[in-house]
């Protein structure tokens, strides 16, 4: 079926919800497309059971109000379970295709969010090793505690709600392993003090962990995982690391789940397919370039594309909400409250940059790899193969690595490995941006294409 809308928002998380709300309140007719069944995004994992959601999320109230406002707004049509596989600008119109539908508009707001950043290490493909986000989605979205002895590791503030959530639901966290130092916040204490709600949120998590006697370890990292006879995770090697993340000494820890997160990677697949201008941010991730009104640089000026939330740079829900609101207003050409919103955004942005500095990830993780370590999980390409590309053939780009090794050619389309391959090859920024370009955004069968008359 074909659908035409005045404004289309893609993504039902904090940024997308606020974008839809503000655009609709400013008089626009809005379609909100989301791949999930229920609104909320990865941040407000909305299971449809409000009592449980309240218990697993520290600010579900805010999300609940926003989701209700969006659902109740007669100017907003919500399309759930809507996965876009192709995006293009044709005849002064933006066309988005899903398996069954074609959506078109001249004003698009992208709020496609982010997913966990993963670093490879020996054994990270063993069942039981997962992202911190996976453990969180299992708990919040599914009511399942990921394992019996869980290690939460990596770097960044996200590790705290994950570990504290598991603990307060009766799960056993055998350690929280943070790569940054215990006092990594000290140089940024002024910014922290300007954000008292963040302090109280963080202290709440720490208190839960302390009560449950969960060990917090700093300047350490999980550098290897080991399987038992059943092929499942049995133990991990934890290292004391230096400031560059190189291994100083190691010890072993038994666990059946290692939930590891190294911050987040923006999902700019749609932005890339539309040819929007992208750049490499300070944290090394590829982000959409936007102006003061969240307007992206579109290859065709006849259509307007806005971007909000994590795809313009990792910054958390507060920044996403502010950017979403500004994008919604801009798409509706309204200026109501714009100045206050920009002030909010500036403050949240400053906090986001501080977080990126405190939890930065130096290149020393590359010293954890062995020749056999899997780099591309889909195509099972190991570190030795990637090294060959660079040493024997002098390649520094993902395309050469792809052609020679198949890394990034599997089902995930390089979403997990491309950033790491770029780091390993020391790729220039232009190549990092090309490396995340995917003309087909979600897998689709030839049969489905033929049905659509596109073959």
């Amino acid at each position: 079926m074909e659908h035409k809308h005045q404004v289309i928002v893609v993504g039902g998380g904090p940024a997308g919800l606020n974008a839809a709300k503000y655009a609709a309140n400013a008089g626009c007719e809005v379609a909100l497309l989301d791949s999930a069944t229920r609104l909320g995004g990865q941040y407000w994992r909305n299971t449809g059971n409000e009592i449980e959601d309240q218990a697993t999320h520290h600010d579900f109230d805010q999300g609940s109000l926003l989701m209700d406002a969006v659902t109740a707004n007669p100017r907003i049509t919500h399309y759930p379970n809507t996965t876009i596989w192709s995006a293009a600008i044709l005849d002064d119109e933006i066309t988005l295709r899903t398996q069954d539908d074609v959506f078109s508009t001249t004003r698009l707001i992208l709020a496609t969010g982010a997913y966990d950043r993963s670093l490879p290490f020996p054994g990270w493909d063993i069942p039981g090793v997962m992202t911190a986000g996976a453990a969180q989605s299992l708990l919040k979205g599914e009511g399942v505690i990921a394992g019996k002895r869980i290690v939460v590791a990596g770097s960044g503030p996200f590790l705290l709600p994950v570990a504290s959530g598991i603990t307060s639901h009766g799960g056993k966290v055998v350690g929280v392993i943070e790569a940054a130092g215990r006092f990594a916040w000290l140089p940024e204490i002024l910014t922290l003090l300007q954000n008292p709600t963040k302090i109280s949120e963080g202290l709440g998590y720490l208190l839960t962990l302390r009560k449950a006697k969960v060990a917090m370890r700093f300047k350490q990292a999980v550098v290897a995982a080991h399987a038992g006879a059943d092929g499942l995770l049995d133990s991990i090697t934890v290292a004391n690391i230096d400031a560059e993340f190189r291994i100083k000494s190691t010890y072993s820890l038994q666990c059946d789940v290692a939930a590891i997160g190294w911050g987040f990677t923006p999902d700019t697949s749609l932005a890339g397919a539309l040819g929007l201008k992208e750049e490499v941010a300070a944290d090394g991730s590829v982000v959409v370039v936007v102006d003061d009104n969240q307007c992206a640089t579109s290859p065709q000026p006849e259509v307007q594309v806005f971007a909000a939330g994590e795809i313009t740079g990792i910054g958390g829900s507060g920044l996403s909400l502010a950017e979403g609101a500004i994008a919604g207003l801009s798409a509706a050409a309204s200026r109501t409250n714009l100045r206050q919103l920009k002030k909010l955004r500036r403050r949240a942005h400053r906090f986001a940059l501080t977080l990126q500095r405190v939890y930065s990830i130096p290149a020393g993780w590359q010293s954890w790899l062995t020749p056999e370590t899997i780099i591309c999980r889909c195509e099972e390409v190991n570190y030795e193969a990637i090294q060959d590309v660079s040493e024997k053939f002098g390649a520094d780009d993902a395309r050469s690595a792809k052609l020679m090794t198949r890394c990034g050619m599997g089902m995930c389309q390089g979403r997990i490995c491309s950033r790491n391959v770029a780091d390993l090859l020391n790729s220039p920024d232009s190549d990092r941006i090309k490396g995340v370009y995917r003309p087909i955004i979600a897998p689709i069968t030839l049969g489905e294409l033929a049905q659509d008359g596109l073959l």
Partner: protein
Amino acid sequence: MITFTFNGLELTARTGQSVAAALLSHNERITRLTRISGKPRGIFCGIGVCFDCLIIIDGKPNQRSCITEVKEGMVVVTQDGA
């Protein structure tokens, strides 16, 4: 409560749960074996991004178990080679 089968074994799941979560609640952690080295894989990203938890559902291979809701009578089988 929902009843489904995994490799012929009858298991229960909570309404609305994903296949991966339902399996994990019964301590079933392997969804597929890789097609090159035959190594086991299970849930990794949990949000449909990484395609590691692929599984055969009602005869259809390459289904992401972490974002597919389990349904009454579903026939789920470990995928050998993906």
